């Protein structure tokens, strides 16, 4: 059908005994789900990771795939029609800002969905302009999408969905990869949009506080168990709050336990930055002085683009200092004191680095082999290697995943594995980039407890972070980087 497609009225969602099993898995991701969402309702979907929330939202968006992708049972209807058959009624915004931008110019990207729905050209551009206004992106239509921040990219994705005038707005952790500023931007944009369109909303998020004021219903899912709690946010959170928090959901009033430090930082300097200039090629920041002592945890905070990650890489011996020096005499042993001069295999027993995106660090086809990379590099024997692998796998709840491919793990599991790969060679200094980004509260608690334990044994931690709670829980001091006048 060509021609003008008008906007969809707020849509009803009906799940009747609905279930889905991915073709490659033995267990059902969702099964026996009975749920009705009335037009215009705003629902926050909660549940432990693995409860099938994302599967449900993907099915509602019609992107779960056909019969060759998995088995379906029961019925899933949007506005009375099969969800997989009604493209355009539901609009989906996903977690990763980078993989949702389709086109190079802001205006074109917003128009993309309209084009696919066959909206007439004369109607597309008014829709694009009103969608951009609704999400508060006041940029020229030909602004390059590559120059947007994470929060702006997510608002762009939201605008692209809005321009399609869906009756059902689906959000799958749209703020999980954003800094606090970006989270607020996106949340406010969604609030404005709902006010304007009265569209039905289903949002997944494990930080309840972001959406609690915006939704009028909370539904809790359990893996294979369907709906286990359903009702107004205050009621559900009062009844289920503690249970949800224990399963990793960030529930207001149920903060994760902070670790208790048993020893204080010492005076022994493991690594010192002296009058350091950092950058890739050109100087981004200079005159940085810093001393990391055994048992201390330094949090590096500051706005996006202030050079936090670059500083982390430079301290970790991965980027050369542009001026000044990084001196790690206490770690060096017989080597020169500057970490960048060490060989890769010399580095792993001295400084461990954990990156923001765990996927960049994975090298092997199974979790077991991934953990064995470090021990093999430093020449440990088979029995020692397997002892270390087992110990860490137990400590970080990875035992049941030892034969799984690292790329197939959940976000929390990937994070735990990436930390484990750095710890397995027992470096006295750990450099972490946004270790708690997008993590559920259970992984957060385990991670902070583990770090506190390492600090107690005389290790040191440098962590680049936006997470104030993490700073409170772990850091013994903070280095705040102010903005620098350079483009991101």
């Amino acid at each position, binding site marked *: 059908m060509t021609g003008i497609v008008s906007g969809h009225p707020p849509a009803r969602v009906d799940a009747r005994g609905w279930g889905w099993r991915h073709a490659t898995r033995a267990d059902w991701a969702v099964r026996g789900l009975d749920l009705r969402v009335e037009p215009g309702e705003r629902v926050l979907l909660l549940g432990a990771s693995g409860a099938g929330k994302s599967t449900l939202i993907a099915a509602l968006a019609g992107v779960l795939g056909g019969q060759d992708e998995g088995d379906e049972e029961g019925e899933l209807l949007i506005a009375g029609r099969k969800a997989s058959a009604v493209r355009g009624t539901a609009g989906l915004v*996903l977690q990763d800002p980078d993989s949702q931008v389709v086109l190079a110019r802001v205006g*074109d990207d917003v128009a*993309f969905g309209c084009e*696919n729905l066959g909206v007439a050209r004369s109607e597309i*551009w008014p829709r694009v302009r009103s969608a951009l206004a609704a999400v508060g992106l006041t940029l020229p239509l030909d602004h390059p999408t*590559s120059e947007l921040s994470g929060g702006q990219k997510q608002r762009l994705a939201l605008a692209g969905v809005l321009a399609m005038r869906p009756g059902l707005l689906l959000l799958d952790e749209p703020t999980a990869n954003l800094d606090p500023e970006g989270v607020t931007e996106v949340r406010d944009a969604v609030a404005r949009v709902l006010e304007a369109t009265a569209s039905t909303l289903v949002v997944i998020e494990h930080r309840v506080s972001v959406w609690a004021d915006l939704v009028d219903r909370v539904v809790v899912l359990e893996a294979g168990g369907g709906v286990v709690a359903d009702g107004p946010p205050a009621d559900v959170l009062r009844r289920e709050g503690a249970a949800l928090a224990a399963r990793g959901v960030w529930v207001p009033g149920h903060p994760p336990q902070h670790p208790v430090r048993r020893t204080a930082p010492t005076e022994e300097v493991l690594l010192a930055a002296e009058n350091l200039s950092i950058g890739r090629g050109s100087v981004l920041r200079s005159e940085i002085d810093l001393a990391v002592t055994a048992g201390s945890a330094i949090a590096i905070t500051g706005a996006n683009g202030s050079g936090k990650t670059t500083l982390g890489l430079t301290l970790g011996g991965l980027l050369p200092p542009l001026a000044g020096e990084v001196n790690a005499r206490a770690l060096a042993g017989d080597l020169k004191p500057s970490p960048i001069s060490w*060989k890769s295999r010399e580095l792993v027993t001295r400084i*461990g680095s954990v990156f923001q995106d765990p996927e*960049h660090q994975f090298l092997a086809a199974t979790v077991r082999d991934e953990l064995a990379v470090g021990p093999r590099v430093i020449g440990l024997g088979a029995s020692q290697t397997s002892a270390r692998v087992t110990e860490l796998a137990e400590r970080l709840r990875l035992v049941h995943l030892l034969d799984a491919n690292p790329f197939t793990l959940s976000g929390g599991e990937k994070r735990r594995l990436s930390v484990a790969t750095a710890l397995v060679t027992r470096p006295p200094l750990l450099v972490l980039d946004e270790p708690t980004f997008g993590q559920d509260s259970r992984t957060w608690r385990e991670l902070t407890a583990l770090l506190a334990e390492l600090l107690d044994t005389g290790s040191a931690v440098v962590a680049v972070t936006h997470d104030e709670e993490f700073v409170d829980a772990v850091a013994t001091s903070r280095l705040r980087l102010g903005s620098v006048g350079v483009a991101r």
Partner: protein
Amino acid sequence: MSILTPVAGTQAIYRVNPVAKFATAMVISVGLLLSVDWVSASVALAFEAVLFFWAGIGPRRFVARTWPIFIAAAFAGVTIALYATASGQTYAQFLFAHVTEGSVNLAIATALRVLAIALPAVVLFLTIDPTDLADGLGQVVRLPSRFVIGALGALRLIGLFAQDWRALEHARRARGVADRGRVRRFAGQAFALLVLSIRRGSKLATAMEARGFGGTTKRTWARASVIGAPEVALVLIGVAVTGIAIATSVLTGHWNFLATR
């Protein structure tokens, strides 16, 4: 920095439909490939030089983007001068190499031809915005939109390659595996980049699908891609340059159809 950063400029050439630029480059290549002689190539180059000035690409950018062509042209010329079939007077000889009157003439003709064909193609393509090209291919040439838009989406990911590559380099050093030989290290890292790219690609495909891409509805195009007077003019300029070059060559008796002489 992305390969898909919109290309824009104030000169008229930036507003010409990319499909016409393709056609023009094609006319010049086919026309100039018909003969291998120095006259037609030089005449075409002379006209092109004037047109380049118009296109408004500054000398620095021109050199930065075209230097490989000059090297290729020189390399082709030298090779032919040394190893082409000997004919006419011999200027120098060493092992298999004969520099003769015939080979030098052919060398000059070839080098000029490489420049006359490649330079306008590069200059024209430099002014093409990939999004406009996709619009043109979809609407004017009527290639399937699935293919055109899919390729455009994939192109955007190339911009993330450089970023991913750097991150992989750091990550592999941090994991202790960066001490291997250069070749093995490169191979391993290239494979990791491939894996990452495929993952990004499938995420992008989901995002595109979620916005209705690949459905059964006939797609509309937000930006009209039209062929009008400027497009016709550009192609005619291409035809004229090629035509004058060929005519001059024939009239001066240098025409050498497919280098058969």
